[in-house]
């Protein structure tokens, strides 16, 4: 009941509202057909949102996750104080996105911020820039902050996965004469694959829904260069009171998430979800 009342009905209602010109009060009455959707896919800001979303997903998969994996492998070794490192790297994930946002808008404040001071101190004044204020750099800076906040989370997932890799297999490979890279590539990585697949999934869904951080740091600016779908939706729904149009955005977001989730489950996670494969590897888990 709770699920129907608080999740399902509002979702269906949003889908319904997406077909109306509606200001958010009373019931939607001005039927607009698919106008909201055609307008959506002609809106350069929304098309930009899609492009930026894709960019963030690609960057996450190519940079953030491999980095997290490297750190996890590193911290899985016998290392002095590795518990401390693990905690330090995981700590940013515990911070709320809002606090992270405020923190980094101070760090990257032009001239006065920590980033510019540090770069200046090591003689790189030229690199100290307008981190969040330059349209061509804002997304990169944002990605840096996202990586800072979330790589620890993925690292923890990988660490847990690595713990489950049996030492015997690695030892056996070692005895067979496999080098470190071969051991990693042929023993560790395949056994870590289920964890990787889940982490990729979380990462992509997270990128699609990114909101808090962007809203606090840039509100999507300068000039929409860091705007995400959720930010655009918020602008229209709660600033312009064009709730019908905002609903259309949320429906598209939901659609993208749904298609991705289903396709991912169907084609990628299938092996993890099916019992057969897992029993074959039961030894390894």
């Amino acid at each position: 009941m709770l699920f129907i009342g608080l999740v399902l009905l509002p979702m269906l209602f949003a889908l319904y509202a997406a077909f109306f010109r509606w200001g958010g009060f009373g019931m939607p009455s001005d039927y607009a057909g698919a106008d909201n959707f055609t307008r959506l896919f002609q809106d350069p800001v929304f098309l930009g949102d899609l492009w930026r979303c894709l960019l963030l997903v690609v960057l996450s998969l190519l940079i953030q996750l491999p980095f997290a994996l490297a750190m996890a492998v590193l911290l899985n070794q016998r290392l002095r104080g590795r518990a401390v490192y693990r905690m330090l790297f995981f700590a940013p994930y515990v911070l709320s996105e809002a606090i992270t946002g405020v923190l980094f808008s101070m760090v990257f404040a032009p001239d006065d911020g920590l980033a510019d001071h540090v770069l200046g101190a090591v003689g790189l004044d030229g690199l100290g820039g307008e981190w969040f204020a330059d349209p061509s750099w804002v997304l990169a800076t944002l990605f840096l902050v996202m990586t800072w906040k979330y790589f620890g989370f993925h690292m923890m997932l990988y660490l847990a996965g690595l713990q489950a890799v049996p030492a015997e297999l690695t030892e056996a490979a070692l005895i067979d004469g496999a080098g470190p890279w071969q051991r990693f590539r042929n023993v560790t990585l395949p056994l870590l694959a289920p964890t990787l697949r889940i982490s990729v999934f979380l990462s992509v869904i997270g990128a699609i829904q990114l909101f808090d951080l962007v809203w606090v740091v840039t509100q999507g600016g300068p000039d929409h260069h860091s705007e995400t779908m959720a930010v655009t939706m918020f602008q229209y729904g709660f600033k312009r009171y064009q709730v019908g149009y905002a609903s259309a955005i949320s429906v598209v977001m939901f659609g993208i998430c749904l298609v991705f989730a289903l396709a991912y489950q169907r084609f990628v996670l299938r092996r993890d979800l099916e019992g057969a494969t897992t029993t074959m590897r039961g030894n390894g888990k």
Partner: protein
Amino acid sequence: MGDPALSRRGFLAVSAAAGLGMTALSGCGGDSDGGSSGTTTIEWWNISTTQPTKDVWAGLAKKFEAQNPKVKIKIVQLENDAYKSKMTALTASGKLPDIFHTWGGGVLKQQVDAGLVEDLTDSTKAWADGLLPVAKQPYLIDDKTYGIPFDIGMIGFWYNKALFKQAGVSAPPTTWSGFLDAVRRLKSAGVTPLALAGKEKWPGMYYWAYLAMRTAGVDALRKAADDKDFTGAGFVQAGGHLKELVDLQPFQKGFLGAAYSTPTGQAATVGNGKAAMELMGQWAPVVEADAGKGLGADLGFFPFPAVEGGQGSITEVFGGGGGHALRKGAPQAAVDFLKFFASQATDQELVKKTGVLPVVPAAESSLTDPNLTAVQAQLKAATGFQLYLDQAYAPAVGQEINDSVAALIAGSKSPEQVTQSVTKTAKEEQ
């Protein structure tokens, strides 16, 4: 990445629930008929939730009750944004409180058009005529009075006298070319001429709005809203003039990412002496001292310069304030209360204790702050008035102006494109 806690479903649930909740809530409120033994209870809805205003207003209500033993005042206070949503719901339901806070402009007009607001033209004429004319402007709709002000303010340039002197700018400019000249001089003296909160967009909109007032004129702004057409030559010129300014690169480093009231924001940049000017409302000195160090005696105020050959003059002001309106058919006691609230004694108390600008000319003597006195002088001499665009226009149009002007300042939209975008949004609003 991506906080799963803010899932789309959670978000939708919240937004839709809020929508439904408002509809449900709209059933309550608004009604207040005479109670027992001939006492009238009137509901007074306001947004003074912060001190000292909250206590001062409660004290005034008590005072009024003491003077009118048969009247009880029930105060309902809501925070600014909550109040706006609640009022939108109440307007849809057709029942407004006896006395309610209003900013005038487009929202008040909607309520008037719906037949929900009492026409105060005749019932208040006797005493409202003496109020500061410019303060009454936001509540005048088709030459009829629908609200009584208690506060008024305006936007203008706040400048650092010391930095002006350093750059050899002897007097505040009164024309746009003089202003651009001052900007050039400040720049060549190594001073950042202007601070701007590019991230928040509304401070940038002030430039465009003022320039549109100076080039196209106040009447054209009103007409553009009525006709849903902002493509007139005056509006394109306004954008062109703003572009002239932007091309001088007058703003502080990283202004596109700067907020308004944060420690590295627009107000702090001026308050710490790192930029010479900002275009801001009468609250600027307080925020400058709050977010930064504040300029003390070095701070000065001058009105937005006139544009050569434009329709508007330097004495026309861009601003807004606060006032009260009555629901249609509100009891006489509510009118009496408005009279009491706009009396010299009350206004003096408000000016002294809550820091508003006087709307009763005779209450001016209570004004001690030199900055506010300067603003008051401009308001008193005003020959025209334009209400804040986000209050005068529908929310979507106001936001589109903010957005398009921000794009103009960032260099991605031309003056023509700004007027086209705004017109397009205005036409989409029914």
